[in-house]
């Protein structure tokens, strides 16, 4: 195993740890905006994992998934905030 694949596997493990900690915050978050920001970080972590997986396999098609995810993460958090603002008025 070369140092490069070791680095990539270590990075994937660290990002998986990030996903677990974000899930804990998503579970115990005391308010709804906490959960929306946790979802935002969740999407960012998944984009990072997709990028590292692209580099690990050498298949360039996976990076399109990251483009679509970065679009939909923004859309999701904005629509949640809009719904929250409309529902409390």
């Amino acid at each position: 195993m070369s140092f490069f694949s070791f680095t990539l596997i270590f990075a994937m493990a660290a990002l998986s740890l990030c996903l677990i900690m974000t899930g804990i915050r998503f579970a115990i978050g005391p308010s709804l905006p906490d959960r929306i920001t946790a979802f935002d970080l969740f999407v960012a972590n998944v984009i990072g994992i997709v990028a590292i997986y692209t580099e690990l396999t050498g298949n360039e098609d996976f990076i399109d998934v990251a483009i679509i995810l970065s679009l939909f993460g923004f859309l999701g958090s904005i629509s949640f905030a809009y719904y929250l603002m409309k529902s409390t008025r």
Partner: protein
Amino acid sequence: MLEDINFLLIREIISSVLIIIGVMFMLISTIGLLRFPDFYIRMSAITKGATLGLGLILSGMGIYFNEPDMFLKVVLIIGFTFLTSPVAAHVIGRTAVRNKIPFWDRTNLDEFKDYLHKEHNVHRDHERDNKQV
């Protein structure tokens, strides 16, 4: 002279360093999300740290592949993330102020007090209007 240099090894080293730095930023911002005491402080931590970490990881990947279309896609993702992450944080933070999410008790709110008072009064006016209709 130029044929002796192993360019693949150089690209792998640069990409590894960028990815390790980016992953460290992501890890620190996630620990901040878990440990900070207040919603607003948590949101500032993940908005800055996760955006920078994601940009470093993606630029490391673009340097490793070293192709023009890959660079274009990487620049597209980084530009979109850097453009949309502060906007989303702003909208969620304003929604949290409107919904009276509590601040940390040690936050200095002296200069912010007038704005908070105004926002909450506007909020109350809207509630009254809805009741009248």
